């Protein structure tokens, strides 16, 4: 068989698979955007790709600090009113000028996107009115004070009102009741490069679903000429083949290589960059005093996790340094908080010490000297080495007398079962998309409160009145210093109460050919516009 195939292969090789020109860039991504419409699916997979075509008013830099983009500056005029100054002399890919009308159109369209699997309304629901003071000034009003407004709109890239068929004068109204929008194009229309125009550094060329998304340089970009003539983004979902594609020279850069392959990739002459991410891996526990804790035995029907001493014992029995070193290959950092310092709202709280002695004493003090048996739920394909971490924790808890049955499953099943409160103890992760402490506090630690939209990912129903009060206050505090103090205090109370147990911060890894540079990002995004040629200088 080989005898037949070899001459043919040689012929093909001679026909020339020339290495990519230095002007072209190919990137291997872990997953594929689900649409070219930047308002269709609120998901980092989509955002990281589409933000090279479309640009929001504000953006976050590599360490998630807020920076101007299409808005040059913004200020809070009073508690509920914001003024945004817009950048002048910006044009969309089809030549239409960027004005305040485009901003209003963009915000108006979000609630009107049909079939959205996860809507962006979440990031604009606080806005009650929006008016153009002039062509390059926007006034936004909110019902309640919202200090995070400039951060919220980071994920809302601006569309061209003119291109999408709006009138010259749009009146904003909440809940998709704007006037003057014309016939709003739905997401499938964005497969047409004539419709999918933004102001970003690259224009949308073509999309071959499942295979590649092609972008081209936008010559009239407002911030200088982009680095690459064409950019091809290829979804390669499996880890091994993604690494192989890099080693074979098919792609110039990949995201998330498996950490066990990193030494091999480096040996082959590729560059590795990594960064601490905003993703905390944590243990959460069922702590509803009125509910029946699932899958706990040996406690006469009591729920030991309601006792802060038991929760502290669990935290002290975990050797975080060992997990980081041996399971994560050093690509993680032991965590004492829900966000790595020095991000906004962190206090630099010490990592809980590894002290099995003390943990046993605490258990005895709580009346569980013989331990108990409990199930630990974990996904096995969502976070880096998630199942191995869970197994290690099970062994560490066994050291202090708690028998743990690890129940590992695929992510889709895990999230459904977790949200149905089927686990007494589980391992999960949280990436703070806003880059500050209110994100994990509101979702993971605040009491379950559907009216206020708090505690959404708190199926353990941990509840602490002090924490709730501080979080609510911080959400309405426009003064940064004061807000940070409140967030620090709220987080510290919850962590000292061991209402949630932080394990480690994930480190995100990228691998690329050594003639590229990339500043690794905390939000784990692979942003094409930030991939630069390494001109022999860093």
């Amino acid at each position: 068989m080989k005898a037949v195939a070899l001459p043919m292969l040689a012929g093909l090789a001679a026909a020339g698979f020339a290495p990519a020109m230095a002007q072209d860039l190919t990137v291997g991504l872990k997953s594929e955007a689900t649409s070219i419409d930047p308002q269709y699916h609120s998901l980092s997979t989509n955002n990281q790709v589409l933000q090279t075509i479309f640009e929001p008013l504000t953006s976050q830099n590599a360490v998630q600090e807020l920076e101007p983009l299409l808005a040059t500056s913004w200020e809070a005029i009073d508690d509920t009113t914001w003024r945004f100054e817009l950048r002048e002399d910006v044009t969309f890919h089809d030549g239409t000028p960027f004005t305040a009308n485009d901003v209003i159109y963009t915000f108006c369209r979000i609630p009107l996107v049909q079939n959205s699997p996860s809507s962006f309304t979440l990031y604009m629901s606080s806005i009650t009115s929006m008016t153009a003071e002039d062509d390059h000034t926007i006034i936004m009003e909110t019902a309640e004070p919202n200090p995070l407004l400039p951060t919220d709109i980071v994920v809302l890239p601006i569309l061209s009102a003119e291109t999408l068929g709006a009138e010259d004068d749009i009146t904003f109204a909440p809940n998709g009741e704007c006037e003057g929008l014309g016939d709003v194009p739905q997401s499938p229309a964005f497969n047409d490069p004539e419709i999918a125009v933004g102001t970003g550094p690259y224009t949308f060329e073509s999309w071959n679903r499942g295979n590649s998304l092609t972008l081209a340089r936008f010559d009239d970009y407002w911030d200088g000429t982009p680095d690459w003539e064409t950019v091809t983004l290829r979804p390669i979902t499996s880890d091994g083949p993604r690494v192989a594609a890099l080693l074979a020279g098919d792609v110039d850069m990949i995201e998330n290589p498996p950490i066990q392959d990193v030494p091999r990739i480096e040996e082959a002459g590729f560059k590795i960059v990594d960064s601490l991410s905003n993703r905390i891996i944590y243990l959460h526990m069922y702590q509803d005093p009125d509910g029946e804790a699932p899958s706990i035995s040996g406690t006469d029907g009591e729920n030991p996790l309601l006792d802060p001493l038991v929760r502290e014992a669990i935290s002290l029995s975990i050797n975080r340094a060992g997990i980081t070193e041996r399971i994560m290959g050093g690509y993680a950092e032991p965590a004492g908080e829900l966000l790595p310092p020095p991000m906004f709202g962190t206090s630099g709280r010490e990592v809980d010490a590894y002290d099995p002695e003390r943990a046993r004493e605490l258990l005895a003090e709580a009346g569980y000297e013989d331990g108990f048996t409990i199930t630990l739920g974990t996904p096995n394909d969502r976070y880096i080495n998630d199942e191995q971490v869970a197994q290690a924790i099970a062994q560490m808890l066994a050291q202090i007398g708690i028998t743990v049955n690890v129940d590992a499953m695929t992510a889709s099943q895990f999230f459904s079962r977790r949200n149905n409160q089927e686990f007494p103890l589980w391992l999960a992760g949280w990436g703070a998309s806003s880059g500050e402490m209110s994100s994990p506090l509101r979702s993971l630690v605040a009491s379950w409160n559907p009216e206020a939209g708090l505690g959404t990912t708190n199926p353990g129903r941990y509840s602490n009145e002090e924490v709730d009060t501080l979080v609510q206050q911080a959400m309405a505090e426009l003064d940064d210093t004061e807000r940070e103090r409140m967030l620090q205090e709220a987080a510290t109370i919850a962590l000292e109460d061991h209402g949630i147990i932080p394990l480690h911060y994930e480190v995100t890894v990228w691998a690329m050919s050594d003639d590229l540079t990339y500043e690794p990002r905390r939000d784990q995004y692979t942003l094409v516009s930030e991939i630069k040629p390494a001109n022999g200088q860093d």
Partner: protein
Amino acid sequence: MIVYLIRRFGQSLLAIVAMAILVFLGVYAIGNPVDVLINPDATQAEVAATTARLGLDKPLWQQFGIFAWNALQGDLGTSFVYGRPAVDVILERLPATMELALVALVLSVGIGVPLGVWAGLKPDSMAGRTIMGGSILGFSLPNFWQGMLLILVFAVLLGWLPAGGRGQTTEFLGMQVSFLTLDGLAHLILPAINLALFKMSLIIRLTRANTREVCLQDYVKFARAKGLSSRRVVMVHILKNIMIPVVTIIGLELGSMVAFAIVTETVFAWPGMGKLLIDSINLLDRPVIVAYLMLTVLIIVSINLLVDVIYSLLDPRIRLSEMKG
């Protein structure tokens, strides 16, 4: 023949209905798609709104009823992930898989049958033994590992071929295909070999066994005795008679190759239907999973029908017995 076909068709319809119910219930039991699709930052109100938008707030029987009613009108639902009709999403990926499966089939038959006949004619020769040894390897090496090894040798170490993806495609009969460009062909070779190896081994072993059996038949001996060239003996008398089981296998295997090229497509990042199925399962894209499996049943059923027709062309006895039945 007609009666027989109609009866077979009815059975196939039943299979499809049973499949729909099983798959729908199965996927329903796995988990809630909203938990997977929704942005973690979403509030409880957003979750409820999305659940209602996808129609997942209704009781199971009602959801199934809506699905079945729409399916009867040819609408298999809208993909949760892509927001487009599930059938469109799948058909968009069909050409890539078909192309891969057909090329793999041509490879496995084109190489497998001659090697099998050779091994059957000269079972004790060095070549015959080597062929059989090779086929055992092709059988027993896991598909995934085989694919990775192909990538390692031909893409990473030798750098002759790309490690994955589909490369350049051209429009052909309204479909995007790769086999018309050099770049596309280069991308096609490794995954096609990976998909073909197992089938090739199967065909080699089958042809060899049949050849040995047929060689001993009287009509072959008679043909030789008549002084026909050995080439003619093999090409006409032997080949024609060993093809029936081979055609059966080809039919069955083509169906399974189209439906379950999943491993190969995953290893080579080949944008076909198998890859789509895996992605859809991970995202609990219920309409796509159900529609995919129903299309799969449809494809396999049609191929089986086709095989029956080819049978009757190859062997008149089959046709005649059917007529009586």
